[in-house]
């Protein structure tokens, strides 16, 4: 029997029977070509496990239970029809349109395929997805980090992942062992959230900083995600975010357009550090760390008045360039 035929027959058999079907009966009806020898038993077990995994990967719910009161040690299987079926779902026209945009978003092969499968299920239940809407631009969702698939798969299967991680500013990567709780996309980059076994606490890792291959190891179901864990909240709280500061800058007239666009206050024609041009005083609020980077890009067109910490950082960094 071809594999797809066997998988579909297994699905139908477990779905159509209202009771649990014993493993023995399943083997007799669908796996009869496995001989009744120790080697045949082992091959059957392996194939049957993989087939169940394949059906579960498609979204099928398979229940495992005890057969009946006479044979308490024999395991049986069934697919509860109501739980395994897609619930009735109906969309308004604008919702169907936004689904049409979502259909084009993924540029990562496995998730593009998963999107197609999901929309096919919706089509099968009578939902028509509108692919013609134009006024929303589809995001381009990629996952180019080579370790993405490993972390996502290990998250789903609850397996341990071991990887080398390089933090910015550290010359050498360090080995990490993580129980991954989830993956989070933030500003176009992917992060994994989980329990760091060596640090003994929750941590967030940026996938682009994983060095070499990440490896999943050990059995599936190796850990439980603590009840009430909110992966998105952990990512928000643990990912480093710089506090905002209010900065006062002297900017040459007609320069610093990018800074002026975000200004909360602009005072025209104030005294400046030189008289090659006129100067304006620009006030804006931004994260301090990235503001130093941004001010530096304007070179001799922008000077920091306040806060002192920002001024010191800019001066220090320029001085280190000049004195090397």
């Amino acid at each position, binding site marked *: 029997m071809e*594999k797809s035929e066997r998988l579909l027959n297994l699905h139908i058999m477990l779905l159509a029977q209202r009771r649990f079907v014993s493993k023995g009966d399943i083997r007799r009806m669908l796996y009869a070509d496995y001989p009744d020898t120790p080697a045949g038993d082992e091959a059957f077990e392996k194939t049957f496990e993989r087939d169940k995994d394949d059906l579960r990967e498609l979204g099928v719910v398979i229940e495992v239970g005890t057969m009946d009161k006479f044979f308490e040690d024999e395991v049986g299987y069934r697919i509860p029809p109501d739980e395994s079926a897609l619930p009735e779902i109906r969309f308004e026209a604008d919702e169907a349109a936004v689904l049409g945009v979502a259909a084009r978003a993924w540029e990562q092969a*496995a998730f593009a395929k998963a999107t197609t499968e999901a929309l096919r299920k919706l089509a099968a239940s009578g939902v028509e997805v509108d692919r013609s809407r134009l006024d929303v631009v589809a995001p381009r969702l990629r996952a180019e980090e080579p370790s993405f698939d490993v972390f996502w798969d290990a998250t789903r299967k609850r397996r341990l992942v071991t990887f080398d991680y390089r933090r910015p500013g550290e010359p050498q990567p360090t080995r990490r062992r993580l129980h991954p709780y989830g993956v989070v996309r933030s500003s176009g980059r992917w992060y994994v959230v989980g329990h760091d076994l060596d640090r003994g606490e929750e941590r967030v890792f940026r996938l682009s900083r994983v060095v070499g291959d990440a490896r999943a190891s050990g059995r599936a179901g190796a850990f439980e995600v603590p009840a009430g864990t909110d992966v998105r909240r952990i990512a928000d709280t643990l990912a480093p975010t710089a506090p905002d500061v209010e900065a006062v800058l002297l900017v040459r007239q007609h320069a610093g*357009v990018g800074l002026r666009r975000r200004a909360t206050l602009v005072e025209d024609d104030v005294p400046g550090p030189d008289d090659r041009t006129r100067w304006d005083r620009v006030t804006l609020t931004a994260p301090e760390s990235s503001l130093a980077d941004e001010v530096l890009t304007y070179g001799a067109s922008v000077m920091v008045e306040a806060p002192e910490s920002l001024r010191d950082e800019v001066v220090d*960094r320029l001085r280190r360039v000049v004195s090397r």
Partner: protein
Amino acid sequence: MSAARTPATTARDQVARLLALVPYLHSRGEVSVTEAAAALDVDPDQLVKDLRVLFLCGLPGGYPDDLIDVDLDALEGEGIIRVSNADYLAHPVRFAPSEAAALVVALRAIGERTPSARDVVERTLAKFEAAGAGSAEMHVTSEPQTAPGDLLALLQGAIDRGHQVELTYHVPTRDEQAARTVDPRAVTHVGEVAYLDAWCHTAQGDRAFRLDRIVEARELETPVASPGSGPRDLTGEWFSGAETTRVTLALEPPAHWVPEYYTVVAQRPGPDGILEVDLDVAGEPWLRQLLLRLAPHARVVRPREFNESFTAGAREALSLYGDTGVR
């Protein structure tokens, strides 16, 4: 995902298609192959192959009545699909976790990017969650915003009506704002960045304008005046184009993120944690800004004259603070 597992994945894919095809047919009675293929986004030839597996399947027992019935005459003769004796497959299967994650994340990313779509995205997500298709394990917290919704709506409206648009555009490498009159063609993405693809009358050439640098836009009554050129593919050679100079930078660890953001031609580790990268640079202003942003963790290995002008620029900026850099 991996090519090595193709055979197993193919069988699973076929079952996935069949578990959608049968309920689709069940609610319709009979459907043409072309119609079903279009609705389910399946190649028509593949759909016929799938049906040839389906009629071998059914309830255990092996009697003809136990098997699903596919009308092969109608299929081969008229290209019509009729399936019966498959009532137990009347409903599609629940979303698999990666299917739910893929859709939910795509929807959330749309909402993050396009504030005007947030309401409809929230309603759609709520329906998925009610159908047990939430995603606890994959999230989006923030997406780079494409553009304010009103800018996008304005540009799309002008494209639909074939009107010219007047832009005020910010060019950071020249630190200036300039007015442009353009024939807009399409809004498109290259990587994470959204562009307006247009013919620019001011520059007399094809130009791509980053949406996040459009300071102001105004739709004109004038119809577009460069007919016949459709939207272009901005991802290919065209975009890299132009004249570039190959530059080698030495990056200290705090600057190692550069290859994550910019396309580098090559990178190799050097001594003392230095990463050397080769970049094709289109203009000196861009390079000077990058080096200043990274200061003092990057320097130019070659061509050396870039390094000298960069240091001179840093000295000039430092002089604003009354500091000569000598201590």
